[in-house]
């Protein structure tokens, strides 16, 4: 038997097919998302000052630290290299108000990773978007600081410190679209400048990290639902474009609703998911007690993802309807 005399100069790999892999990897996707977030980080610092960098560092630091700690307690491999905790930290920081307290930021970061993610088993198993869980927790824990906005450094009109959304809701003051677009408005660190958000978001869509269906259906949904009310009474209800550029809509649509883990698996489901977010968002923005609803609408629809997945399974090839 010539077979067993193994040739010692080779140690081959024995694995199941397929034997080649695409360029995609978890790590690479996560770092691409990080790259896409960078413009927002820059705009945050430019608009609100260097202190914001501190918030970001604290947030990222505590996210990564919490993840490492949990993995250590569970005696699992420390998985911070995949970068997902860094994304969570960055996004959490970017949806906080400027000049937010660092200790509260740390609490938010711990909740994000601890309760939002690791409790479910870590990367890939969570039901809700971790960064949003963290923010929702903060919003519920510290409602006042969470709704206190400072004006960006380059604001044209610095009288009101409200965000465009709370301005229109509570004070009936509307904001110029061009200001919304450039970032001359109050708001969270990352959501002020639509350009910065779009830059990163479109990059992600183009290279295929992010599925285009969710952002598109969210935008269409907001245009339709928001548009209906606007047509009913343009004096009371803002126009759909305002909905799109104000508040966290763009960050939500491009970075948070698209999170792989917490969005539907199937194309059809993504449409439903996006439209659902848009509907809830418009309802909260127009009728709710809170000025902003992106976070809540995404979290709300996250809860429906398992149900959506269940009822949008595509037809198996060749199977009768």
């Amino acid at each position: 038997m010539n077979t067993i005399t193994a040739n010692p100069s080779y140690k081959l790999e024995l694995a199941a097919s397929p034997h080649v892999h695409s360029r995609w990897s978890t790590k690479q996707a996560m770092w691409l998302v990080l790259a896409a977030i960078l413009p927002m980080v820059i705009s945050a610092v430019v608009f609100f000052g260097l202190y914001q960098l501190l918030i970001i560092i604290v947030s990222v630091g505590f996210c990564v630290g919490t993840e490492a700690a949990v993995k250590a307690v569970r005696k699992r491999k420390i998985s911070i290299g995949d970068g997902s905790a860094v994304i969570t930290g960055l996004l959490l920081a970017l949806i906080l108000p400027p000049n937010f307290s660092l200790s509260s930021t740390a609490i938010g970061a711990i909740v994000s990773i601890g309760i939002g993610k690791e409790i479910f088993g870590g990367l890939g198993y969570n039901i809700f978007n971790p960064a949003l869980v963290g923010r929702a927790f903060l919003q519920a824990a510290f409602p006042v600081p969470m709704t206190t906005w400072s004006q960006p450094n380059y604001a044209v009109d610095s009288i009101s410190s409200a965000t465009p959304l709370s301005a229109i809701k509570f004070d009936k003051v509307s904001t110029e679209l061009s200001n919304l677009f450039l970032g001359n408005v109050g708001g969270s660190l990352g959501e002020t400048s639509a350009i910065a958000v779009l830059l990163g978001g479109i990059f992600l869509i183009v290279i295929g990290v992010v599925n285009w269906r969710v952002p598109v259906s969210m935008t269409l949904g907001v245009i339709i639902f928001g548009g209906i009310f606007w047509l009913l009474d343009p004096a009371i209800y803002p126009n759909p474009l305002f909905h799109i550029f104000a508040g966290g809509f763009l960050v939500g649509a491009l970075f948070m609703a698209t999170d792989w883990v917490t969005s539907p698996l199937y194309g059809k489901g993504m449409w439903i998911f996006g439209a659902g977010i848009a509907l809830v968002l418009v309802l909260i923005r127009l009728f709710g007690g809170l000025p902003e609803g992106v976070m809540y609408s995404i979290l709300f629809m996250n809860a429906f993802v398992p149900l959506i997945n269940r009822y949008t399974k595509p037809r198996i090839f060749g199977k009768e309807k």
Partner: protein
Amino acid sequence: MKSKLGFVKEYTKGLWENNPVFKQVLGMCPTLAVTVSAINGIAMALATTFVLVFSSIIISSVRKLIPSQVRIASYILIIATFVTIVDLVMKAQFPDLSKSLGPYIPLIVVNCLILGRQEAFSSKNGVLRSALDALGMGTGFLIALFMLGGIREILGSRTLLGFQIMPDFYEPWLVMILPAGAFLTLGLMMAYFNSIAINMKKKETDKIIEQYKKSKAAKTIEAGA
């Protein structure tokens, strides 16, 4: 039949081993709803204990007279009667407390803990035993509600039983006194107690495994020698 527990044990088992909240997951609604502060938790637990003890006593003393088919119905009636009594007394004597416990006092009627104990214990045991069991479960409930209420109060309003115990610079976490905080706190507490139990079990297993390994090593050495 397992040998009868001692009277002391009958009481203490409800404190930890069979804690109605953490171990048996009973009576969740009042547990979550009223524990915005420690004092509320205590009041609720006391009210529940009162109902639990008295209905246990009544039920265990008349248990032989009630046909099993109307057992649960009679129990519910008896419990509801006691709950109404508690409610009326509270409203008359402690109007403030009664207000803050809100509509959760009447819900003691449907608290699974009470009905559960009657069905599982009082209907099968004598008066003294039942009373002890009820008292034990009530105490367990009290402990759980006090802990939960205490944690929520400390974090959510800086105080414990009305006294400020967190420093001024501590910003209270409002969320703790909201529904979400109740769910999260109870979930985490349960997980914590579970992990203690699991660790204890694991230690036992590990000990046996350790012994096994040692004895095997000894055997090998013997054989080698």
